[in-house]
Protein backbone atom coordinates (compact mmCIF):
# COMPACT_ATOMS: atom_id res chain seq x y z
CA UNK A 1 0.00 0.00 0.00
CA UNK A 2 1.38 3.38 -1.01
CA UNK A 3 1.08 6.04 1.66
CA UNK A 4 0.44 9.72 0.97
CA UNK A 5 4.12 10.64 1.18
CA UNK A 6 5.09 7.98 -1.36
CA UNK A 7 2.41 9.18 -3.78
CA UNK A 8 3.61 12.76 -3.36
CA UNK A 9 7.21 11.68 -3.92
CA UNK A 10 6.37 9.86 -7.16
CA UNK A 11 4.31 12.81 -8.35
CA UNK A 12 7.24 15.10 -7.57
CA UNK A 13 9.60 12.92 -9.61
CA UNK A 14 7.08 13.05 -12.46
CA UNK A 15 6.62 16.83 -12.12
CA UNK A 16 2.88 16.56 -11.62
CA UNK A 17 1.03 18.74 -9.16
CA UNK A 18 -1.64 16.82 -7.26
CA UNK A 19 -4.47 18.05 -5.06
CA UNK A 20 -4.94 16.42 -1.64
CA UNK A 21 -8.00 14.63 -2.97
CA UNK A 22 -5.94 13.23 -5.89
CA UNK A 23 -3.21 12.02 -3.53
CA UNK A 24 -5.77 9.96 -1.62
CA UNK A 25 -7.60 8.64 -4.68
CA UNK A 26 -4.51 7.80 -6.75
CA UNK A 27 -2.83 6.26 -3.70
CA UNK A 28 -5.63 3.74 -3.44
CA UNK A 29 -5.81 3.04 -7.17
CA UNK A 30 -2.04 2.75 -7.63
CA UNK A 31 -1.78 0.42 -4.66
CA UNK A 32 -4.38 -1.81 -6.30
CA UNK A 33 -2.39 -1.91 -9.53
CA UNK A 34 0.90 -2.60 -7.73
CA UNK A 35 -0.71 -5.37 -5.75
CA UNK A 36 -2.01 -6.89 -8.97
CA UNK A 37 1.32 -6.77 -10.78
CA UNK A 38 2.89 -8.78 -7.99
CA UNK A 39 1.42 -11.78 -9.83
CA UNK A 40 4.58 -11.66 -11.98
CA UNK A 41 6.61 -13.14 -9.13
CA UNK A 42 4.96 -16.47 -10.02
CA UNK A 43 6.77 -16.55 -13.37
CA UNK A 44 10.13 -18.24 -13.45
CA UNK A 45 12.43 -15.86 -15.31
CA UNK A 46 15.76 -17.33 -14.35
CA UNK A 47 18.05 -17.37 -17.39
CA UNK A 48 15.53 -15.33 -19.39
CA UNK A 49 16.76 -12.13 -20.99
CA UNK A 50 14.72 -8.93 -21.22
CA UNK A 51 12.72 -8.02 -24.31
CA UNK A 52 13.12 -4.41 -25.30
CA UNK A 53 12.13 -4.79 -28.94
CA UNK A 54 10.50 -7.59 -30.87
CA UNK A 55 11.49 -7.53 -34.53
CA UNK A 56 15.20 -8.11 -34.06
CA UNK A 57 16.49 -5.08 -35.93
CA UNK A 58 20.05 -4.11 -35.06
CA UNK A 59 22.13 -1.06 -35.95
CA UNK A 60 19.83 0.53 -38.50
CA UNK A 61 22.04 2.90 -40.47
CA UNK A 62 21.18 5.84 -42.67
CA UNK A 63 23.38 7.86 -44.99
CA UNK A 64 24.91 10.82 -43.21
CA UNK A 65 23.34 13.50 -45.32
CA UNK A 66 21.51 16.72 -44.70
CA UNK A 67 17.78 16.37 -45.27
CA UNK A 68 15.12 19.01 -45.33
CA UNK A 69 12.84 18.88 -42.30
CA UNK A 70 9.09 18.64 -42.63
CA UNK A 71 8.57 22.02 -41.01
CA UNK A 72 10.39 25.34 -40.87
CA UNK A 73 11.92 26.75 -37.70
CA UNK A 74 9.26 29.47 -37.66
CA UNK A 75 6.44 26.91 -37.87
CA UNK A 76 7.89 24.92 -34.98
CA UNK A 77 8.48 28.00 -32.83
CA UNK A 78 4.90 29.06 -33.49
CA UNK A 79 3.72 25.93 -31.62
CA UNK A 80 4.84 27.47 -28.33
CA UNK A 81 2.56 29.67 -26.26
CA UNK A 82 5.62 31.31 -24.73
CA UNK A 83 7.34 34.39 -26.13
CA UNK A 84 9.73 33.67 -28.98
CA UNK A 85 13.03 35.49 -28.85
CA UNK A 86 14.86 35.20 -32.15
CA UNK A 87 15.40 31.49 -32.71
CA UNK A 88 14.44 30.48 -29.19
CA UNK A 89 11.52 30.15 -26.82
CA UNK A 90 11.88 32.33 -23.74
CA UNK A 91 11.37 30.40 -20.48
CA UNK A 92 11.54 31.45 -16.85
CA UNK A 93 14.96 31.86 -15.27
CA UNK A 94 16.58 28.49 -14.50
CA UNK A 95 19.66 29.63 -12.56
CA UNK A 96 19.52 31.97 -9.64
Amino acid at each position, binding site marked *: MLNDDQVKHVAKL*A*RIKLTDEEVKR*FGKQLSG*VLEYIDI*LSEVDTKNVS*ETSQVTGLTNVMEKDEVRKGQSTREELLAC*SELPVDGKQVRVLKTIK
Partner: protein
Amino acid sequence: MGKLNELTISKAAKGLKEKKFSAVDLLKDCLAVIKGKNKDLNAFVTVDEEGAMKTAKTVDKKFAAGEKLPILAGIPCGVKDLICTKGVRTTCCSPILRDFVPPYDATVVEKLKTQDMVMIGKTNLDEFACGGSSEHSCFGPTKNPHDLSRVAGGSSGGSAAAVTANMCLYALGTDTGGSIRLPASFCGNYGMKVTYGRVSRSGVNAMASSWDTVGHFAKNVEDIATVLSVIAGRDRRDLTTPDREVPDYSEFLGQDVKGLKIGLPKQYFGEGVQKEIATAVMEKVAILEKAGAEVMEVDLPSTKYAVAAYYICVPAELSANLERFDGIRYGKKPAKEPKDLIDFYFEARGTGFGDEIKRRIMIGTYVLSAGYYDAYYKKAQRVRTVIVNEFVEAFKKVDVMIGPVSPIPPFKVGELVDDPLAMYLADALTIPVSAAGVPALACPAGADAAGLPIGLQIIAPQFEEGRCIRVGDFLERGQG
Protein backbone atom coordinates in the same frame (compact mmCIF):
# COMPACT_ATOMS: atom_id res chain seq x y z
CA MET B 1 -28.43 2.48 -54.05
CA GLY B 2 -28.50 3.53 -50.38
CA LYS B 3 -26.78 6.57 -49.08
CA LEU B 4 -23.26 6.97 -50.45
CA ASN B 5 -21.66 7.06 -46.99
CA GLU B 6 -22.85 3.49 -46.43
CA LEU B 7 -20.66 2.18 -49.26
CA THR B 8 -17.41 0.31 -48.80
CA ILE B 9 -14.19 1.79 -50.20
CA SER B 10 -14.20 -0.55 -53.20
CA LYS B 11 -17.83 0.20 -54.12
CA ALA B 12 -17.40 3.94 -53.65
CA ALA B 13 -14.21 3.93 -55.73
CA LYS B 14 -16.04 2.12 -58.51
CA GLY B 15 -18.88 4.63 -58.42
CA LEU B 16 -16.46 7.54 -58.56
CA LYS B 17 -14.56 6.02 -61.43
CA GLU B 18 -17.74 5.36 -63.39
CA LYS B 19 -18.92 8.91 -62.57
CA LYS B 20 -22.14 7.65 -60.96
CA PHE B 21 -21.57 10.26 -58.27
CA SER B 22 -18.85 12.73 -57.33
CA ALA B 23 -16.40 12.87 -54.44
CA VAL B 24 -18.31 15.93 -53.24
CA ASP B 25 -21.58 13.91 -53.20
CA LEU B 26 -19.88 11.17 -51.20
CA LEU B 27 -18.41 13.67 -48.75
CA LYS B 28 -21.74 15.45 -48.34
CA ASP B 29 -23.45 12.22 -47.29
CA CYS B 30 -20.72 11.59 -44.71
CA LEU B 31 -20.94 15.15 -43.38
CA ALA B 32 -24.73 14.88 -43.15
CA VAL B 33 -24.55 11.83 -40.91
CA ILE B 34 -21.83 13.47 -38.78
CA LYS B 35 -24.10 16.49 -38.34
CA GLY B 36 -27.00 14.24 -37.41
CA LYS B 37 -25.30 11.73 -35.15
CA ASN B 38 -22.06 13.12 -33.77
CA LYS B 39 -23.80 14.95 -30.93
CA ASP B 40 -24.87 11.56 -29.57
CA LEU B 41 -21.88 9.44 -30.54
CA ASN B 42 -19.07 11.96 -30.00
CA ALA B 43 -16.92 10.06 -32.49
CA PHE B 44 -15.34 13.15 -34.07
CA VAL B 45 -13.66 15.86 -32.01
CA THR B 46 -12.75 17.98 -35.05
CA VAL B 47 -14.44 17.99 -38.44
CA ASP B 48 -12.42 19.62 -41.21
CA GLU B 49 -15.33 20.31 -43.52
CA GLU B 50 -13.52 23.03 -45.44
CA GLY B 51 -10.33 21.04 -46.04
CA ALA B 52 -12.26 17.90 -46.94
CA MET B 53 -14.47 19.78 -49.39
CA LYS B 54 -11.43 21.36 -51.04
CA THR B 55 -9.80 17.95 -51.58
CA ALA B 56 -13.06 16.40 -52.82
CA LYS B 57 -13.44 19.17 -55.39
CA THR B 58 -9.86 18.70 -56.55
CA VAL B 59 -10.47 14.97 -56.92
CA ASP B 60 -13.64 15.60 -58.92
CA LYS B 61 -11.71 17.89 -61.24
CA LYS B 62 -9.08 15.21 -61.78
CA PHE B 63 -11.76 12.60 -62.53
CA ALA B 64 -13.46 15.03 -64.91
CA ALA B 65 -10.16 15.55 -66.69
CA GLY B 66 -9.98 11.78 -67.22
CA GLU B 67 -7.07 11.22 -64.86
CA LYS B 68 -6.54 7.69 -63.56
CA LEU B 69 -6.62 7.93 -59.77
CA PRO B 70 -5.74 5.54 -56.95
CA ILE B 71 -8.55 3.57 -55.30
CA LEU B 72 -8.50 5.74 -52.16
CA ALA B 73 -8.92 8.96 -54.16
CA GLY B 74 -11.90 10.94 -52.92
CA ILE B 75 -12.73 8.45 -50.15
CA PRO B 76 -13.48 10.10 -46.78
CA CYS B 77 -11.26 8.93 -43.93
CA GLY B 78 -11.33 9.65 -40.19
CA VAL B 79 -8.01 10.02 -38.38
CA LYS B 80 -7.47 9.27 -34.71
CA ASP B 81 -6.62 12.51 -32.98
CA LEU B 82 -3.30 11.04 -31.80
CA ILE B 83 -2.00 11.24 -35.36
CA CYS B 84 -0.58 14.56 -36.56
CA THR B 85 -2.37 16.32 -39.41
CA LYS B 86 -0.74 19.42 -40.84
CA GLY B 87 -2.80 22.52 -40.16
CA VAL B 88 -5.59 20.55 -38.45
CA ARG B 89 -5.77 20.57 -34.65
CA THR B 90 -4.32 17.40 -33.09
CA THR B 91 -5.18 17.23 -29.40
CA CYS B 92 -4.56 13.62 -28.32
CA CYS B 93 -7.80 14.42 -26.43
CA SER B 94 -5.66 15.91 -23.69
CA PRO B 95 -6.13 19.32 -22.09
CA ILE B 96 -2.40 19.96 -22.51
CA LEU B 97 -2.65 19.78 -26.33
CA ARG B 98 -6.13 21.21 -26.69
CA ASP B 99 -5.08 23.91 -29.16
CA PHE B 100 -2.09 22.18 -30.77
CA VAL B 101 -1.96 22.52 -34.56
CA PRO B 102 0.90 20.43 -35.97
CA PRO B 103 3.09 21.96 -38.67
CA TYR B 104 3.53 18.55 -40.34
CA ASP B 105 1.72 15.34 -41.26
CA ALA B 106 2.37 11.91 -39.81
CA THR B 107 3.86 9.56 -42.41
CA VAL B 108 0.60 7.56 -42.63
CA VAL B 109 -1.35 10.73 -43.35
CA GLU B 110 1.23 11.89 -45.86
CA LYS B 111 1.03 8.51 -47.64
CA LEU B 112 -2.76 8.63 -47.80
CA LYS B 113 -2.67 12.22 -49.05
CA THR B 114 -0.58 11.12 -52.02
CA GLN B 115 -3.60 8.89 -52.81
CA ASP B 116 -5.94 11.91 -52.68
CA MET B 117 -7.58 10.85 -49.42
CA VAL B 118 -10.34 13.13 -48.18
CA MET B 119 -9.40 13.71 -44.51
CA ILE B 120 -12.79 14.40 -43.00
CA GLY B 121 -11.77 14.97 -39.40
CA LYS B 122 -10.15 13.80 -36.21
CA THR B 123 -11.64 11.11 -34.02
CA ASN B 124 -12.01 10.77 -30.26
CA LEU B 125 -9.77 8.61 -28.08
CA ASP B 126 -8.72 8.01 -24.51
CA GLU B 127 -6.23 10.75 -23.67
CA PHE B 128 -2.90 9.89 -25.32
CA ALA B 129 -4.42 6.49 -26.24
CA CYS B 130 -4.47 5.33 -22.61
CA GLY B 131 -7.64 3.42 -21.91
CA GLY B 132 -10.00 0.78 -23.15
CA SER B 133 -13.21 2.76 -23.39
CA SER B 134 -12.57 6.22 -24.90
CA GLU B 135 -14.00 7.68 -21.69
CA HIS B 136 -10.67 9.21 -20.66
CA SER B 137 -11.01 11.99 -23.23
CA CYS B 138 -11.14 15.69 -22.45
CA PHE B 139 -14.00 15.86 -24.96
CA GLY B 140 -16.10 13.26 -23.12
CA PRO B 141 -16.74 9.62 -24.02
CA THR B 142 -17.51 8.14 -27.43
CA LYS B 143 -20.75 6.14 -27.33
CA ASN B 144 -21.36 2.78 -28.92
CA PRO B 145 -23.47 3.10 -32.10
CA HIS B 146 -25.24 -0.16 -31.17
CA ASP B 147 -26.26 1.11 -27.72
CA LEU B 148 -25.69 4.70 -26.67
CA SER B 149 -25.53 3.77 -23.00
CA ARG B 150 -22.42 1.70 -23.67
CA VAL B 151 -18.79 2.51 -24.51
CA ALA B 152 -17.33 2.18 -27.99
CA GLY B 153 -14.17 0.59 -26.63
CA GLY B 154 -10.80 2.24 -26.71
CA SER B 155 -8.57 3.80 -27.09
CA SER B 156 -9.46 4.30 -30.81
CA GLY B 157 -13.18 4.41 -29.98
CA GLY B 158 -13.95 7.46 -32.10
CA SER B 159 -12.54 5.84 -35.24
CA ALA B 160 -14.43 2.60 -34.61
CA ALA B 161 -17.75 4.32 -33.92
CA ALA B 162 -17.30 6.63 -36.93
CA VAL B 163 -16.85 3.67 -39.32
CA THR B 164 -19.79 1.74 -37.86
CA ALA B 165 -22.01 4.84 -38.03
CA ASN B 166 -20.95 5.41 -41.67
CA MET B 167 -19.51 8.84 -40.89
CA CYS B 168 -16.48 7.92 -42.98
CA LEU B 169 -15.60 4.87 -45.08
CA TYR B 170 -12.48 3.94 -43.12
CA ALA B 171 -10.45 5.36 -40.27
CA LEU B 172 -6.94 5.29 -38.84
CA GLY B 173 -6.21 4.19 -35.30
CA THR B 174 -3.38 2.96 -33.11
CA ASP B 175 -3.03 -0.25 -31.13
CA THR B 176 -0.59 -0.62 -28.23
CA GLY B 177 -2.43 -3.24 -26.17
CA GLY B 178 -5.75 -3.62 -28.00
CA SER B 179 -6.71 -0.05 -28.92
CA ILE B 180 -7.85 -0.99 -32.44
CA ARG B 181 -9.13 -4.51 -31.83
CA LEU B 182 -11.22 -3.79 -28.73
CA PRO B 183 -13.21 -0.90 -30.27
CA ALA B 184 -13.57 -2.81 -33.56
CA SER B 185 -15.03 -5.69 -31.55
CA PHE B 186 -17.30 -3.44 -29.44
CA CYS B 187 -18.55 -1.54 -32.51
CA GLY B 188 -18.81 -4.57 -34.81
CA ASN B 189 -16.41 -3.74 -37.64
CA TYR B 190 -12.98 -4.79 -38.89
CA GLY B 191 -9.80 -3.54 -37.21
CA MET B 192 -6.23 -4.30 -38.28
CA LYS B 193 -3.48 -4.35 -35.69
CA VAL B 194 -0.27 -4.71 -37.66
CA THR B 195 3.08 -6.26 -36.82
CA TYR B 196 5.22 -3.95 -34.73
CA GLY B 197 7.14 -1.90 -37.32
CA ARG B 198 4.94 -2.68 -40.32
CA VAL B 199 3.48 0.85 -40.44
CA SER B 200 5.46 3.98 -39.68
CA ARG B 201 4.71 5.76 -36.42
CA SER B 202 6.41 8.99 -37.39
CA GLY B 203 4.14 11.88 -36.45
CA VAL B 204 2.02 9.71 -34.18
CA ASN B 205 2.23 10.67 -30.52
CA ALA B 206 4.22 8.00 -28.73
CA MET B 207 2.75 6.05 -25.85
CA ALA B 208 4.96 2.98 -25.43
CA SER B 209 7.59 2.95 -28.14
CA SER B 210 8.31 -0.79 -28.10
CA TRP B 211 4.58 -1.65 -28.37
CA ASP B 212 2.87 1.08 -30.43
CA THR B 213 1.46 0.28 -33.87
CA VAL B 214 -0.64 2.23 -36.37
CA GLY B 215 -3.53 0.51 -38.13
CA HIS B 216 -7.04 1.03 -39.39
CA PHE B 217 -10.75 0.26 -39.29
CA ALA B 218 -12.94 -0.62 -42.26
CA LYS B 219 -16.31 -2.14 -43.13
CA ASN B 220 -14.91 -5.25 -44.77
CA VAL B 221 -11.69 -7.20 -45.22
CA GLU B 222 -11.18 -6.09 -48.81
CA ASP B 223 -10.98 -2.48 -47.63
CA ILE B 224 -8.61 -3.49 -44.81
CA ALA B 225 -6.31 -4.99 -47.47
CA THR B 226 -6.56 -1.92 -49.71
CA VAL B 227 -5.56 0.53 -46.97
CA LEU B 228 -2.83 -1.71 -45.56
CA SER B 229 -1.15 -1.96 -48.96
CA VAL B 230 -0.85 1.84 -48.94
CA ILE B 231 0.22 2.57 -45.37
CA ALA B 232 2.65 -0.32 -44.74
CA GLY B 233 6.36 -0.16 -45.40
CA ARG B 234 9.71 1.27 -44.50
CA ASP B 235 9.98 4.90 -43.47
CA ARG B 236 13.22 6.76 -43.00
CA ARG B 237 11.55 8.77 -40.27
CA ASP B 238 10.74 5.65 -38.20
CA LEU B 239 13.71 3.31 -38.15
CA THR B 240 11.77 0.54 -36.42
CA THR B 241 10.12 -0.12 -39.80
CA PRO B 242 12.14 -2.93 -41.39
CA ASP B 243 13.04 -2.86 -45.04
CA ARG B 244 10.66 -5.68 -45.97
CA GLU B 245 8.63 -5.92 -49.10
CA VAL B 246 5.00 -4.84 -48.81
CA PRO B 247 2.81 -7.34 -50.64
CA ASP B 248 -0.33 -6.36 -52.50
CA TYR B 249 -2.60 -7.52 -49.69
CA SER B 250 -5.58 -7.89 -52.04
CA GLU B 251 -3.84 -11.04 -53.34
CA PHE B 252 -4.90 -12.75 -50.12
CA LEU B 253 -8.59 -12.19 -50.86
CA GLY B 254 -10.82 -14.83 -52.37
CA GLN B 255 -8.70 -17.79 -51.25
CA ASP B 256 -9.82 -20.96 -49.50
CA VAL B 257 -8.62 -22.24 -46.12
CA LYS B 258 -8.07 -25.88 -47.05
CA GLY B 259 -5.20 -27.37 -45.07
CA LEU B 260 -4.64 -24.20 -43.08
CA LYS B 261 -3.61 -24.99 -39.50
CA ILE B 262 -5.62 -22.99 -36.99
CA GLY B 263 -4.68 -22.89 -33.32
CA LEU B 264 -7.13 -22.13 -30.55
CA PRO B 265 -5.24 -20.90 -27.49
CA LYS B 266 -7.01 -22.69 -24.68
CA GLN B 267 -6.50 -19.72 -22.33
CA TYR B 268 -8.59 -17.60 -24.74
CA PHE B 269 -11.66 -19.75 -24.20
CA GLY B 270 -11.32 -20.44 -20.48
CA GLU B 271 -11.78 -18.67 -17.20
CA GLY B 272 -12.92 -15.05 -17.37
CA VAL B 273 -14.20 -15.31 -20.92
CA GLN B 274 -17.97 -15.08 -21.19
CA LYS B 275 -19.46 -18.28 -22.48
CA GLU B 276 -21.63 -16.60 -25.06
CA ILE B 277 -18.54 -14.93 -26.55
CA ALA B 278 -16.50 -18.13 -26.64
CA THR B 279 -19.42 -19.97 -28.27
CA ALA B 280 -19.87 -17.31 -30.96
CA VAL B 281 -16.18 -17.49 -31.86
CA MET B 282 -16.28 -21.30 -31.97
CA GLU B 283 -19.16 -21.12 -34.45
CA LYS B 284 -16.91 -19.19 -36.81
CA VAL B 285 -14.08 -21.64 -36.25
CA ALA B 286 -16.50 -24.45 -37.18
CA ILE B 287 -17.06 -22.76 -40.57
CA LEU B 288 -13.32 -22.84 -41.21
CA GLU B 289 -13.03 -26.45 -40.09
CA LYS B 290 -15.88 -27.46 -42.39
CA ALA B 291 -14.03 -25.76 -45.24
CA GLY B 292 -11.00 -27.95 -44.68
CA ALA B 293 -8.93 -26.08 -42.11
CA GLU B 294 -7.19 -28.15 -39.49
CA VAL B 295 -8.15 -26.92 -36.02
CA MET B 296 -6.14 -27.72 -32.91
CA GLU B 297 -5.71 -26.47 -29.39
CA VAL B 298 -2.53 -24.56 -28.54
CA ASP B 299 -1.14 -23.50 -25.21
CA LEU B 300 -0.17 -19.94 -24.26
CA PRO B 301 0.26 -20.56 -20.52
CA SER B 302 1.56 -17.07 -19.65
CA THR B 303 -1.52 -15.30 -21.01
CA LYS B 304 -2.63 -14.45 -17.50
CA TYR B 305 0.59 -12.56 -16.80
CA ALA B 306 0.44 -10.34 -19.88
CA VAL B 307 -1.75 -7.61 -18.36
CA ALA B 308 0.58 -7.26 -15.38
CA ALA B 309 3.68 -7.14 -17.59
CA TYR B 310 1.95 -4.57 -19.79
CA TYR B 311 1.07 -2.35 -16.83
CA ILE B 312 4.73 -2.15 -15.92
CA CYS B 313 6.40 -1.92 -19.33
CA VAL B 314 3.92 0.46 -20.95
CA PRO B 315 3.63 3.04 -18.15
CA ALA B 316 7.43 2.96 -17.87
CA GLU B 317 7.87 3.81 -21.55
CA LEU B 318 4.97 6.24 -21.45
CA SER B 319 6.26 8.15 -18.44
CA ALA B 320 9.47 8.79 -20.39
CA ASN B 321 7.69 9.66 -23.65
CA LEU B 322 5.30 12.09 -22.00
CA GLU B 323 8.13 13.99 -20.33
CA ARG B 324 8.17 16.16 -23.45
CA PHE B 325 4.80 17.66 -22.54
CA ASP B 326 5.83 20.49 -20.28
CA GLY B 327 3.93 23.40 -21.81
CA ILE B 328 7.07 24.99 -23.23
CA ARG B 329 7.69 23.99 -26.84
CA TYR B 330 4.06 23.10 -27.45
CA GLY B 331 0.91 22.62 -25.44
CA LYS B 332 -0.85 24.79 -22.92
CA LYS B 333 1.20 26.92 -20.59
CA PRO B 334 -0.11 27.10 -17.01
CA ALA B 335 -3.17 29.27 -16.56
CA LYS B 336 -1.81 30.47 -13.21
CA GLU B 337 1.36 32.57 -13.33
CA PRO B 338 4.10 30.20 -12.09
CA LYS B 339 6.68 31.43 -9.61
CA ASP B 340 9.61 29.61 -11.21
CA LEU B 341 10.39 27.05 -13.91
CA ILE B 342 9.83 24.04 -11.65
CA ASP B 343 6.47 25.43 -10.63
CA PHE B 344 5.75 25.97 -14.35
CA TYR B 345 6.24 22.23 -15.01
CA PHE B 346 4.14 21.16 -12.03
CA GLU B 347 1.29 23.46 -13.00
CA ALA B 348 1.38 22.71 -16.74
CA ARG B 349 1.38 18.94 -16.17
CA GLY B 350 -0.87 18.93 -13.10
CA THR B 351 -3.61 20.80 -14.95
CA GLY B 352 -2.77 19.52 -18.44
CA PHE B 353 -3.14 15.77 -17.88
CA GLY B 354 -6.28 13.81 -17.03
CA ASP B 355 -6.62 11.12 -14.35
CA GLU B 356 -5.57 8.08 -16.36
CA ILE B 357 -2.44 9.80 -17.68
CA LYS B 358 -1.46 10.93 -14.20
CA ARG B 359 -1.99 7.38 -12.94
CA ARG B 360 0.09 5.82 -15.69
CA ILE B 361 2.89 8.37 -15.48
CA MET B 362 3.06 7.72 -11.76
CA ILE B 363 3.09 3.93 -12.17
CA GLY B 364 5.83 4.30 -14.77
CA THR B 365 7.85 6.69 -12.64
CA TYR B 366 7.48 4.38 -9.65
CA VAL B 367 8.58 1.18 -11.41
CA LEU B 368 11.59 2.96 -12.95
CA SER B 369 12.66 4.65 -9.73
CA ALA B 370 15.74 3.62 -7.80
CA GLY B 371 15.27 0.39 -5.89
CA TYR B 372 12.29 -0.80 -7.92
CA TYR B 373 13.77 -1.00 -11.40
CA ASP B 374 14.95 -4.63 -11.12
CA ALA B 375 11.94 -5.89 -9.20
CA TYR B 376 9.37 -4.39 -11.53
CA TYR B 377 10.69 -3.19 -14.88
CA LYS B 378 13.36 -5.81 -15.54
CA LYS B 379 11.10 -8.56 -14.27
CA ALA B 380 8.26 -7.43 -16.54
CA GLN B 381 10.54 -7.31 -19.56
CA ARG B 382 11.62 -10.87 -18.82
CA VAL B 383 8.03 -12.00 -18.53
CA ARG B 384 7.47 -10.34 -21.90
CA THR B 385 10.21 -12.59 -23.29
CA VAL B 386 8.42 -15.65 -21.89
CA ILE B 387 5.20 -14.52 -23.62
CA VAL B 388 7.04 -13.85 -26.91
CA ASN B 389 8.58 -17.32 -26.81
CA GLU B 390 5.21 -18.97 -26.28
CA PHE B 391 3.92 -17.30 -29.45
CA VAL B 392 7.02 -18.41 -31.36
CA GLU B 393 6.49 -21.99 -30.18
CA ALA B 394 2.76 -21.95 -31.00
CA PHE B 395 3.44 -20.67 -34.52
CA LYS B 396 5.74 -23.64 -35.14
CA LYS B 397 2.59 -25.76 -35.03
CA VAL B 398 -0.08 -23.53 -36.57
CA ASP B 399 -0.45 -20.93 -39.34
CA VAL B 400 -2.82 -18.64 -37.44
CA MET B 401 -4.49 -18.52 -34.06
CA ILE B 402 -8.07 -17.47 -33.38
CA GLY B 403 -9.68 -16.28 -30.18
CA PRO B 404 -12.12 -13.70 -28.87
CA VAL B 405 -11.00 -10.06 -28.82
CA SER B 406 -12.67 -9.17 -25.56
CA PRO B 407 -13.66 -11.54 -22.76
CA ILE B 408 -16.65 -9.30 -21.98
CA PRO B 409 -19.28 -7.42 -24.03
CA PRO B 410 -19.22 -3.59 -24.34
CA PHE B 411 -19.73 -2.21 -20.85
CA LYS B 412 -21.83 0.77 -19.72
CA VAL B 413 -20.45 4.28 -19.88
CA GLY B 414 -19.11 5.11 -16.41
CA GLU B 415 -19.22 1.51 -15.21
CA LEU B 416 -15.46 0.94 -14.95
CA VAL B 417 -14.07 4.45 -15.19
CA ASP B 418 -12.95 4.57 -11.54
CA ASP B 419 -11.83 0.97 -11.45
CA PRO B 420 -8.70 1.02 -13.62
CA LEU B 421 -7.81 -2.59 -12.91
CA ALA B 422 -11.17 -3.97 -14.09
CA MET B 423 -10.86 -1.85 -17.23
CA TYR B 424 -7.34 -3.18 -17.86
CA LEU B 425 -8.66 -6.75 -17.82
CA ALA B 426 -10.87 -6.07 -20.86
CA ASP B 427 -7.55 -6.16 -22.74
CA ALA B 428 -6.51 -9.53 -21.29
CA LEU B 429 -6.65 -11.27 -24.69
CA THR B 430 -5.31 -8.43 -26.83
CA ILE B 431 -2.28 -7.48 -24.74
CA PRO B 432 -0.36 -10.77 -25.19
CA VAL B 433 -0.56 -10.32 -28.97
CA SER B 434 0.89 -6.82 -28.60
CA ALA B 435 3.62 -8.12 -26.31
CA ALA B 436 4.69 -10.53 -29.06
CA GLY B 437 4.51 -7.78 -31.70
CA VAL B 438 2.47 -9.98 -34.04
CA PRO B 439 -0.44 -8.87 -36.25
CA ALA B 440 -4.11 -9.57 -35.57
CA LEU B 441 -7.28 -8.73 -37.43
CA ALA B 442 -10.44 -8.13 -35.41
CA CYS B 443 -13.56 -9.37 -37.21
CA PRO B 444 -17.25 -9.40 -36.28
CA ALA B 445 -18.46 -12.74 -34.90
CA GLY B 446 -22.15 -12.14 -34.47
CA ALA B 447 -23.96 -10.65 -31.50
CA ASP B 448 -24.92 -11.68 -27.99
CA ALA B 449 -28.46 -12.07 -26.68
CA ALA B 450 -28.63 -8.33 -25.98
CA GLY B 451 -27.70 -7.61 -29.60
CA LEU B 452 -24.22 -6.34 -28.73
CA PRO B 453 -21.41 -7.17 -31.16
CA ILE B 454 -18.94 -9.96 -30.48
CA GLY B 455 -15.50 -9.87 -32.07
CA LEU B 456 -12.85 -12.46 -32.83
CA GLN B 457 -9.19 -11.92 -33.65
CA ILE B 458 -7.14 -13.75 -36.23
CA ILE B 459 -3.54 -13.74 -35.05
CA ALA B 460 -0.62 -14.45 -37.39
CA PRO B 461 3.18 -14.57 -37.08
CA GLN B 462 5.14 -11.33 -37.55
CA PHE B 463 4.72 -9.73 -40.99
CA GLU B 464 2.09 -12.30 -42.03
CA GLU B 465 -0.82 -9.83 -42.13
CA GLY B 466 -1.78 -11.58 -45.37
CA ARG B 467 -2.85 -14.67 -43.43
CA CYS B 468 -5.18 -12.59 -41.23
CA ILE B 469 -6.71 -11.15 -44.41
CA ARG B 470 -7.07 -14.55 -46.06
CA VAL B 471 -8.94 -16.07 -43.10
CA GLY B 472 -10.95 -12.91 -42.32
CA ASP B 473 -12.06 -12.60 -45.90
CA PHE B 474 -13.08 -16.26 -46.01
CA LEU B 475 -15.18 -15.83 -42.87
CA GLU B 476 -16.75 -12.66 -44.21
CA ARG B 477 -17.82 -14.41 -47.40
CA GLY B 478 -19.09 -17.37 -45.35
CA GLN B 479 -21.28 -14.96 -43.43
CA GLY B 480 -23.03 -14.06 -46.67
